[in-house]
């Protein structure tokens, strides 16, 4: 494998890791506050659809992003209502949200666009342009070989849409919020011991709703990036299990932001490798593409089982909080 194809794989790793990273950090806020969220997939899907539909209708990708965030936050509100206010089963609510998104996007998509569930292709201002960073060389098919650093900078780091850079920026921001602000401290506390937070006079309900809203916001960005950045339009079931991979990455990262970045890059790399190579011949054994695709799930099972390290979720996760009277 030559340098250019290696760098191309890294480049697509970053592209494929971006929606995972958004969704993974989204899940981090919710789960750190004690609300399990297996509905990341559904929120991403509905956001991808809303973003593509609004971008197509208005011709502006930013309106699309806002619509995606709005749709995702609406779904997050349903989840919040079910799991915070009505103290329902958070896992079942998540399952319902995934199905709701999967059905609703096809029903509305088919009747609005008459394309069997997909949106018309987005062009021009209706999708994100790739940004060429300062000092980077615009990569074309006949770019002459550059110096190593220049190659890495131009091919891998430069040339992504704005949301990619936003997603990477979200990691330090999340770390800062979580570990350096009052809100973050309370958020972590409410996921471990909501009664203590309540005793301190802080509203458990308010904190959890705030966390769920941030989850909606970030899932909205994840979905919007999928339909307006990664590809040019909405396809039915286009998230294709990425919400679950993000959840897996979250467990893999043990609910910590910097590790989430690493986990998402790893799973993005696996995805990029599976897309590019199909079966990989290592000389002594052929790794089938199906194995590469299943690897994120297998790794998560191994981590969860504590064979390599131990993933301990926030202690109050999944349990509705009942205020003492």
């Amino acid at each position, binding site marked *: 494998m030559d340098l250019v194809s290696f760098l191309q794989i890294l480049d697509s790793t970053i592209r494929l890791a971006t929606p995972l990273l958004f969704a993974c950090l989204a899940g981090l806020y919710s789960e750190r506050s004690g609300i399990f969220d*297996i509905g990341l997939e559904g929120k991403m899907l509905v956001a991808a659809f809303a973003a593509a539909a609004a971008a197509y209708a208005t011709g502006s990708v930013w309106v699309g992003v806002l619509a995606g965030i709005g749709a995702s936050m609406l779904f997050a509100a*349903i989840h919040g*209502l*079910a*799991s915070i206010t*009505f*103290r*329902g*089963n*958070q*896992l*079942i*609510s998540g*399952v*319902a*949200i*995934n*199905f*709701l998104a*999967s*059905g*609703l996007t*096809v*029903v*509305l998509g*088919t*009747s*609005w666009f008459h394309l069997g*569930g997909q949106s018309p292709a987005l062009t021009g201002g209706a999708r994100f342009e790739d940004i060429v960073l300062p000092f980077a060389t615009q990569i074309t098919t006949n770019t002459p070989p550059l110096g190593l650093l220049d190659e890495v900078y131009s091919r891998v780091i430069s040339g992504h849409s704005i949301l990619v850079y936003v997603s990477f920026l979200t990691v330090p921001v999340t770390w800062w919020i979580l570990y350096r602000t009052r809100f973050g401290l309370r958020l972590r506390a409410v996921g471990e011991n909501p009664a203590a937070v309540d005793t301190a006079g802080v509203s458990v309900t308010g904190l959890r709703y705030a966390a769920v809203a941030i989850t909606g916001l970030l899932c909205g960005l994840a979905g919007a990036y999928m339909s307006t950045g990664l590809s040019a339009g909405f396809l039915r079931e286009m998230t294709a*299990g990425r919400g*679950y991979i993000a*959840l*897996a990455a979250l*467990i893999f990262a043990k609910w910590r932001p910097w590790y989430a970045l690493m986990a998402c890059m790893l799973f993005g790399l696996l995805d990029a490798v599976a897309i590019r190579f199909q079966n990989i011949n290592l000389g002594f054994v052929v790794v*089938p593409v*199906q*194995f590469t*695709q*299943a690897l994120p*799930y*297998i790794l*998560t*099972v191994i981590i*969860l*089982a*504590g*064979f390599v390290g131990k*993933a301990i*979720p926030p202690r109050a996760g999944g349990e509705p909080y009942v205020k003492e009277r």
Partner: protein
Amino acid sequence: MDKLPRWADVVLVPLICLIIAFVICGVLIWGIGQDPADALKIMVQGSLGSTYAWGYTLYYATNFMFTGLAVSIAFQASLFNIGGEGQATLGGLGVALSCLLIPWPHWTLALIGSIAASALFGAAWALIPAWLQARRGSHIVITTMMFNFISFALMNYVLVNMLRPLGSMDPASARFPAAVNLPKLGDILGLVGIPFSSKNPANISLLIALAAAVGVWALMWHTRLGYELRAFGKSEKAAVYAGISPVRITLYALALSGGLSGMMAINAVQGEAHRLLLNSVEGAGFIGIAVALMGRNHPFGIVLASILFGFLYEGGSQLALGTSIPREVITVLQALVILFTGALPYMVQKPLEHLFALRRRTA
């Protein structure tokens, strides 16, 4: 706290949830410029209007009975098995291997073989997450969900690289020999003089599903194991105090659950497709969640809820054929049923409790 009368809890609450879900879907259909009343008429006619249509409804219902019972057993033990999809996929592999590798002389023997193989494969696939939860403390919901995805990859690999006949392009196994084909429901009912179309996929598996429902009822309410499962589900601490081993109960619950999910393949793989396809489960594992919630975890309720969802599923296909309403409307309905019966039961229960309390006071 004013309790609801039992009949209201068992019948009224799910019924109200269903009505709310139907109304929302009606609004959705109206919103995309179609007539909801028309849609309902097409669904009823297309899935209940003839014995031919009933056959399809009952075929789907059979799948849902297996997966619904599977989810309910785990629910009773307070475990959420979201991996029915993967367990049914593996069950399909069991059925295919049994039908392809063993030269069965007669379908009755092949059926016994398939039941054993599908239950064994499904149970084995569920036992790994169960063991991981019981012994290693990993969360069963996440693990079974991951196992769904692993099972799809595994099935893809097995079909493409092992079971695919030479020269065939699509990822599916060879056809099963004709000797293992199961008798159609129409043929069975014909024997006792009931005219029923046999041009549909409904087959003898329906009777097995009904027998399984009776079996689950007997197990849960008339055996020691069933009692232990329910006690564990009500309160783990009390169960442990009473000498019930959490490890043992988790393993039993998931083995039974996975086995039942796997048995779905008798209907879908041996009864209908006659070969193993890549996606033989078609979401039935997930619909099982809705069925178990709607049926209130009771086998009788699950059988009824399965027929309801069979009607919805077949009705959805009829919608797609007869109108421009996509069949995914049914997915929305299914999602709403899960949401209202599973995640928002208090939203319906609380006002009802107030209503009943009010009536009692005035009476």
